[in-house]
C-alpha cells in the first residue's frame, strides 16, 4: 500500500513537471531562434482587357504572385475580390489603380499596384494617305527650277513632267512625243481600299491621235531589295531618281512594268473632247504598307532611253487625290 502511495505521488510530480515543461513560451519566446521565412510572398500580376466597343470595360487579371496563400484585390473602382485571379467590369472610362495584396501563412505581406487606363476604342478608320503636291503646283525641287512636277520625279522611270497652266492654275503636262511621267510613294494601311481620282485633259477633240494616259499603282513589295521608303512633306528635298538627289524604290522600267508589282493598271484614252475630265479608280493595298503612284503618256512608238513614248498628243493632269474608303 505504501509503495502504491509513493508511486501515486511520484506520478503526480512527474505529471506536474510535464505540465510545466509544455509551457514552451516560458523558456523560448515565440519567434526566438525560429528560422526566417526564406521565401517571402511576392505580389505580381498582369492584366488584359477587351478591345471592342462592347467589352473594353472588362478586365481580366492574372495573379503571378509567388509564395502566397491569400489574395486581396482592390480594383480601384470600389470593387474588391479575394479570388486568386481577378475579373472586373469598370463603370466607365478613366484611370484606376489596381492593388494586389498577398500574404503567406507566416503573416508576411507583399503589395503591388498598377495603373490602368480604361479608354473606349475608336472605330479604326483608315486615314487618307498623304500626297505631296497633289494639285501639281509649281514648287521648288531638290535640283533645278520650280516645276508643277515637283515631288513627282523618278528619272529611273522617265523624263520629268512639265509645267503648264489651265485657267490660271498650274497643271502638269505629259508632252507629245516624250517619255514624260509622274511618280510618288506614299504610306497606306495594308488591305485597305482606296479611291483614286484624277483630272485629265487630252489636247484634241477628234480622238484620232494615239495618246493615252496610263496610271499604275505600284506595290511597295516590288521596291528594290533593302529599300526603305521615306515619306517627305517638302518637295524641295525629295529625290528625283538620280545620284545627286537620291533614288526611289522603283529603279527600272522593267520593275515598274512587272505585272506582279502592279496593284492596278488603268489607261485613259482620248475621250473625244478637250475638257478636264474626272476619272475614278479603286485599289486594295494588299500586303503593302507603302505604294507608289505612277502615270505616263503612252501610245507613241517605243523609243529613247525608257522604251516608251507619249505619242503625238499633249496630255495634262490638273490634280490627283487618293482617299481611303471607310
Amino acid at each position, binding site marked *: 500500500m505504501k509503495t502504491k502511495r509513493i508511486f501515486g505521488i511520484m506520478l503526480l510530480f512527474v505529471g506536474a513537471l510535464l505540465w510545466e515543461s509544455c509551457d514552451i513560451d516560458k523558456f523560448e519566446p515565440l519567434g526566438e531562434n525560429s528560422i526566417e521565412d526564406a521565401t517571402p510572398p511576392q505580389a*505580381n500580376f*498582369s492584366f*488584359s482587357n477587351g*478591345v*471592342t466597343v462592347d467589352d473594353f470595360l472588362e478586365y*481580366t*487579371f*492574372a*495573379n*503571378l*504572385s*509567388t509564395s502566397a496563400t491569400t489574395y486581396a484585390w482592390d480594383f480601384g473602382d470600389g470593387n474588391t475580390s479575394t479570388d*486568386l*485571379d481577378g475579373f472586373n467590369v469598370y463603370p466607365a472610362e478613366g484611370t484606376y489603380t489596381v492593388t494586389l495584396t498577398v500574404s503567406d501563412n507566416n503573416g508576411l505581406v507583399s503589395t503591388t499596384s498598377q495603373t490602368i487606363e480604361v479608354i473606349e476604342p475608336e472605330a*479604326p478608320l483608315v486615314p487618307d494617305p498623304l500626297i505631296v503636291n497633289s494639285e501639281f503646283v509649281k514648287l521648288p525641287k531638290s535640283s533645278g527650277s520650280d516645276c508643277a512636277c515637283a515631288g513627282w520625279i523618278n528619272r529611273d522611270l522617265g523624263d520629268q513632267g512639265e509645267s503648264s497652266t489651265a485657267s490660271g492654275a498650274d497643271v502638269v503636262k505629259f508632252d507629245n512625243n516624250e517619255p514624260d511621267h509622274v511618280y510618288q510613294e506614299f504610306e497606306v494601311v*495594308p*488591305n485597305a*481600299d482606296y479611291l483614286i481620282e484624277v483630272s485629265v485633259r487630252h489636247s484634241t477633240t477628234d480622238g484620232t491621235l494615239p495618246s493615252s494616259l496610263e496610271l499604275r499603282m505600284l506595290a511597295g*513589295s516590288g521596291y528594290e531589295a533593302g529599300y526603305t521608303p521615306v515619306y517627305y512633306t517638302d518637295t524641295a528635298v525629295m529625290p528625283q531618281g538620280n545620284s545627286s538627289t537620291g533614288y526611289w524604290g522603283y529603279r527600272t522600267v522593267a520593275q515598274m512594268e512587272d505585272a506582279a508589282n502592279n496593284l492596278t493598271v488603268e489607261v485613259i484614252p482620248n475621250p473625244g473632247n478637250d475638257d478636264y475630265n474626272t476619272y475614278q479608280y479603286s485599289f*486594295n493595298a*494588299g*500586303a*503593302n*504598307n507603302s505604294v507608289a503612284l505612277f502615270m505616263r503618256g503612252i501610245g507613241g512608238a517605243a523609243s529613247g532611253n525608257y522604251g516608251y513614248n507619249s505619242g503625238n498628243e499633249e496630255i495634262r493632269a490638273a490634280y490627283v487625290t487618293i482617299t481611303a474608303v471607310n
Partner: protein
Amino acid sequence: MKHLKFIGVLLTFSLLFACNEDFLEPIPENVISSENYFLNDEQIETGVIGIYDAMQGINSTSLNDNRGIQQEFYVTEMRSDNTRTKNQEGEAAQFESYTITPNNGIVENYYRSTYNTIYRANLVLENLGNASQTAAPIFEGEAKFARAYSYFNLVRLFGDVPLVDRVISPLDAETAYTRVSTSTIYDLIVSDLETAAANLENGEYARASKAAAEALLAKVHLTLGNYLEAQTLCENIMGYSYMLEPNFNDVFYNEGNNEIIFAIVFSPGIEADSQDFSAEFMNGVGRTVGVNYVTQDAVAFLDANGGPDRTPFSYRIDPFQPTQNQVVKYLPNGEDGGADGKTFMSDATLSGNDWVVLRYADVLLMHVESIIAGGQDTSVSAALNSFQQIRDRAGLTDTVTNITKQDLLNERRAELAFENQRLFDLLRFGEAQSILSAHATATGGSYSATDLLLPIPQREINLSNGLMQQNPGY
C-alpha cells in the same frame, strides 16, 4: 652493363614521345565519336537525319527515353478545351485539371526531348565548315528550322527558357540553366527561320523546306503581332504549288499529299521508326487506357460548326464505350479497329501515321488572321477567298461576306482540332484566360492564370543549383 646504358638512353627518348597529346587522349579508331565524325557531307547528313529523329522521339513506354512529338498532345491539346484523359487518372490527368506539378514526368520529357533536338541542330551547325559549298546552306537551313521550331514551342509552353545556340559543355551550367527572356529567344527564332527560308527549296515534306520555314515564320510573326510580315509570307506560300486536299479525310491518310507542308514522318511496324500515339488515342490499346479523348465541349462544338464533310473525320463515338469520344485523325495505320474499335490487324503500338506540323489549310487561315491584323473583323476579298476555301471543303458552302475574330478562332478549332494547335491559338488570340477558366469551371478543374505556362521541370531546377527560378503558381 654496357647494354644498360643503351637501355637508359632508349627509355629517355621514348619518354619524349610518350607525352604527345594524341597518345594520352587518343581518338578512338573503332568507334564513332563526334570528334572524328561530321567530316564530310555524307556524315553531316546523318547528323541532319538525327535532328528529325529527335523530333520523332523514341517509341517506348519508358519516360527515360526522349519521346519527342509522340507526347506533345499532353502538353498542348490536353491543356485546351479539346481533349482529356478517358478516366481522369494519374499524371496524364494533371493536364486537363490544371494541377500539373513540377515533377510531372511528361512535362520533363517534353522539355528534355526538345532540348535534345536543339542540341542535335547545334551539333550540325557547329560542323558546317566541313560540308561542301553546295550542301552547307541546306544543312544550315534544316538545322535552323529545327532549332527555331523547338524554341517556338518552348517559349509558348514554358515562357523564359535557357538559350542554347551552340554546343555547350556539361560544365557550362550558366548557359544551361539561365532563363533568357522570350523576346531574346524570339530574335533567334526569327533569324533562324529567315536563314532557313533563304537557304531551302520546296519539294520536301518530311524535311524542312522553304515553305515550311515561311509558314512557321508567319505563325511566329502572328504571335508577335507583325501582321504585314505574316501576310507577305502566307502569300508567298499561296504562290507555290500547295493546295487543299479535296477530301478532308485524305489529309491524314494519303500521306505526303499536296496539302502537307511539313510533317514528322513515321513508318509502321519498325520500333525505331514508328509511333505509339495512334494507339494511345484508342481505348486501352496502348499503354494507357485512353488519352486525348474528345471533351463534351469539343463534341458539341464540332457537331454545330464542323460541317458535314469534316466533323465525321475529326472524332467518333468510341465503339467500345459509347459514352466516350475518340479522335479519328490518326487511327492506327488507317484501321478503324473493327466493331469494338480496338481490334487491329497491324500492331497499333507500332503505327506509321505521320504527325502533320504544317499544312496548307493552316496557311490559308493564317492569311485571314494576318489581314484581320488584330482588329475585330474583315471583309477584304483576299481574306474571304482564303476562308471560303476552307469552308467549302468542310461542306459549309454558304458565301461568307465578313469574318470576325471569333469566326476565325472557331474555324481554326474546327479545321485543326486535335492537331496541337488549339492551346496556341487561344493564347495568340488573347482568349486563353477566359475560355480555359470557363472550361475548368465546367469540368471541375482548378484553373488559374499561371496555368498558361507549364512548370519548369523540378529536375532542371534542382540541377541548376539555384540558377533557375520556377514559374509563378507552381
